[in-house]
């Protein structure tokens, strides 16, 4: 990174509840937000978090992003409608995999049943994939660069990487960033199911020999990134530092990862190079770990390629074991979870991991949360995200002791 970029606020809404700390604590406790093969944010009611007009003008994925954003900004000590910098230099980059598909389908039903004249004029602005980015920018008066990366399950991590680059390039002093997803509609369940991507057993058990697909989740994660000098000047509390970012493409297959994880390994290596760190500096890996046979095998190979012999010494865990796969929100929620894991110096477990796959022989933290130790005092983690289309995005995050 050409500039130091720090994280001053985090927020999350997940199937484990509302709040980043709720996610961390319940994950460490081994609680699961998965029921009947799906993971939903049942604790989230938009009216508890949003004015009526804003809730009405937002698809659920945007509502989740707004709630997570409010939490992140509050933690960063920002006013709701006035960032602590020139608003023109504050960006808002919030990705999604699918966008407002629920709104789209409702509009389609109305069209078929009642005709074009009855279709809501709100259908497009709610459905569009940039709706969450737009809603956060409007609500919080963020007037710099704003858009929505859409790279399937890498969108959250790509958003955070793009946000960091916007600060590093000098375009912004701060960026509100992350990802959001809410796609629990029957067409998505059916289509992911027909791809054999969803778990038939309804159990998310990343890296376990019995893993049989992912469990679909929903939620949002939002982070406040600030340029280090500016954050220090305003007296901000620094939670973590975004040390590096690496992104690559497999250029291989529409859905399957390249089996050796070569593209993923390059993304990890790029993130470490961007951070100026060596493989031995990595204290924890927050894995993409989807619980699909292909991902978890390719990711294990990628970690081995990128970290070499050190791979065997690093605790690796996947929050998807308790919240399922949040698709375009996954990378952002996992970045939030990584910040808290480093801050608390604990590697949360891959809950439910029991049976070793002989090919998957790394340390997946199966037996409950593990204290993290670091040789040099600064805790460093990488957070992996890989999306359909072969998109790989890796964040390197550090917390000083």
């Amino acid at each position, binding site marked *: 990174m050409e500039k130091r970029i720090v994280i001053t606020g985090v927020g999350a809404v997940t199937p484990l509840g509302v709040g980043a700390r709720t996610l961390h604590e319940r994950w460490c406790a081994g609680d699961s937000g998965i029921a009947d093969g799906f993971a939903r944010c049942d604790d989230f009611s938009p009216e508890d978090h949003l004015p009526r*007009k804003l809730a009405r003008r937002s698809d659920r994925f945007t509502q989740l992003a707004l709630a997570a954003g409010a939490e992140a900004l509050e933690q960063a000590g920002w006013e709701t409608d006035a960032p602590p910098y020139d608003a023109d230099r504050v960006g808002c980059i919030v990705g999604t995999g699918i966008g407002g598909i629920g709104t789209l389908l409702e509009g389609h039903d109305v069209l078929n049943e009642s005709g074009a004249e009855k279709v809501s004029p709100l259908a497009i602005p709610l459905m569009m994939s940039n709706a969450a980015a737009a809603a956060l920018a409007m609500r919080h008066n963020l007037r710099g660069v704003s858009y929505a990366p859409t790279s399937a399950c890498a969108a959250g991590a790509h958003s955070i990487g793009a946000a960091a680059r916007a600060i590093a390039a000098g375009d912004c002093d701060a960026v509100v960033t992350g990802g959001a997803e809410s796609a629990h509609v029957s067409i998505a369940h059916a289509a992911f199911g027909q791809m054999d991507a969803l778990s038939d057993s309804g159990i998310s058990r990343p890296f376990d020999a019995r893993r049989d697909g992912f469990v679909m989740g929903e939620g949002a994660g939002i982070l406040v990134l600030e340029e280090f000098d500016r954050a220090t000047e305003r007296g901000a509390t620094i939670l973590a530092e975004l040390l590096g970012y690496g992104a690559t493409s497999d250029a291989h297959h529409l859905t399957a990862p390249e089996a050796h994880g070569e593209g993923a390994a390059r993304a990890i290596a790029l993130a470490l190079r961007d951070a100026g760190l060596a493989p031995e500096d990595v204290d924890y890996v927050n894995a993409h770990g989807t619980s699909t046979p292909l991902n978890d095998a390719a990711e294990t190979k990628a970690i081995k390629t990128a970290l070499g012999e050190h791979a065997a010494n690093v605790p690796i865990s996947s929050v998807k074991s308790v919240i399922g796969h949040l698709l375009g929100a996954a990378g952002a929620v996992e970045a939030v979870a990584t910040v808290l894991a480093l801050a608390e110096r604990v590697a949360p477990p891959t809950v439910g991991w029991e049976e070793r796959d002989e090919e998957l022989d790394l340390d997946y933290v199966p037996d409950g949360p593990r204290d993290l130790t670091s040789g040099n005092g600064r805790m460093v983690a990488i957070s992996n995200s890989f999306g359909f289309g072969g998109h790989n995005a890796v964040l390197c995050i550090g917390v000083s002791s």
Partner: protein
Amino acid sequence: MPETVTREAIQARVNEALEEFGAEPSDITPDATFEALDVDSLDLVELGQIVQEEYGVELKGEDMPKLKTVGDAVDLIAERAGV
């Protein structure tokens, strides 16, 4: 169209719609401007769909700029509904 449409009924239906759009009920008066109620062109399109459904009255895009207050909208709907 129901035969018993009254101006009061139209006013009540418009108020209900504005409340649903997110306006504060206590702020909704005949003199209140849509701008003050934070009711915008997208809301007015929805209001148009509602009055079309309820009263068979069409509010066109060209009508919208002329509607500044709640009372303006109720007047126009009532006029077109023959009340």
